[in-house]
């Protein structure tokens, strides 16, 4: 079942589409980042409770959103790949995984750096932080499984099933971690101070979220285009080996 090119008709179309959209995504991401960073670091006031540490939230929260968004992208692309046998779905899922994992790592690191001034320790078994940690293991499990096979297509199909099984589990894990957290949590500590979303705080957050999303799209397009080229190279190499 080699991924010969004709069954893969739409990547050519995808390549053209990607090449057209890419500059807009990249440009949009750059502008949104510039504006977002300015708003987050300079233009917005410190929070009356947390002071300047609230600025960490402007990267932590969008990163956590994109961590989940990335996993959903993987699951949807995997579903497309499994149901309609579209190799492009696999390539999109495999391209989204490292990006999503990257955002998950950012969410964890910034979460710990935010936790230190607020609770005095870097790691607190707070429900949200713990769920993001489990999400990271789901990402790493997917990436490890996909690369554990000699035949990339075999790895992609196994990964697709794992991504779907994992995606069904994300809400269950989230629920059980919240349940576990309320059991062991003296109510006082982890009131993960949800700052009242005052406009001066909401705007930088939303602009940064937009920047993260545009950057995710840019990176995804880049990696999918690269994956299509690499697939083409493999097909050529096989053809030459047989030829």
């Amino acid at each position, binding site marked *: 079942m080699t991924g010969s090119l004709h069954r893969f008709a739409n990547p050519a179309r995808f390549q053209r589409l990607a090449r057209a959209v890419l500059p807009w995504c990249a440009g949009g991401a750059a502008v949104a980042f510039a504006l977002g*960073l300015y708003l987050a*670091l*300079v233009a917005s006031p*410190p929070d009356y409770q947390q*002071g*300047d*540490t609230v*600025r*960490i939230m402007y*990267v*932590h929260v969008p*990163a956590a959103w994109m961590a989940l968004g990335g996993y959903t992208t993987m699951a949807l692309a995997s579903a497309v790949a499994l149901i309609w046998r579209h190799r492009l779905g696999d390539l999109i899922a495999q391209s989204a995984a*490292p*990006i999503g994992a*990257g955002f998950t*790592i*950012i969410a964890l*690191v*910034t979460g710990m*750096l*935010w936790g*230190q*001034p607020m609770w005095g320790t870097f790691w607190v078994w707070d429900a949200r932080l713990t769920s993001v940690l489990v999400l990271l293991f789901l990402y790493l499990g997917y990436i490890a499984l996909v690369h554990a096979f000699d035949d990339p297509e075999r790895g992609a199909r196994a990964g697709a099933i794992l991504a779907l099984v994992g995606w069904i589990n994300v809400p269950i894990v989230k629920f059980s971690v919240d349940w576990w957290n309320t059991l062991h949590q003296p109510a006082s500590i982890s009131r993960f101070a949800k700052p009242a979303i005052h406009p001066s705080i909401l705007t930088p957050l939303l602009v940064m979220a937009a920047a993260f999303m545009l*950057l995710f799209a840019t*990176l995804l397009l*880049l*990696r999918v*285009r*690269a994956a299509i*080229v*690499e697939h*083409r*190279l493999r097909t*050529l190499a096989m053809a030459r080996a047989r030829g």
Partner: protein
Amino acid sequence: MMKEFLEMGGYAAFVWPAYGATLFVLALLIVDSVRRLKRGQDELARLEGSEE
């Protein structure tokens, strides 16, 4: 003015590393993605170039 900005209300040791880590990971992703695409395209050009 610059000094207060850098101090981040005394939380400089947490805010700047957080932004540093974020930009580092994102830069890593950007560089890897762009280089992967470039390398593939050059290889493809070389292969398809030699075939015609």
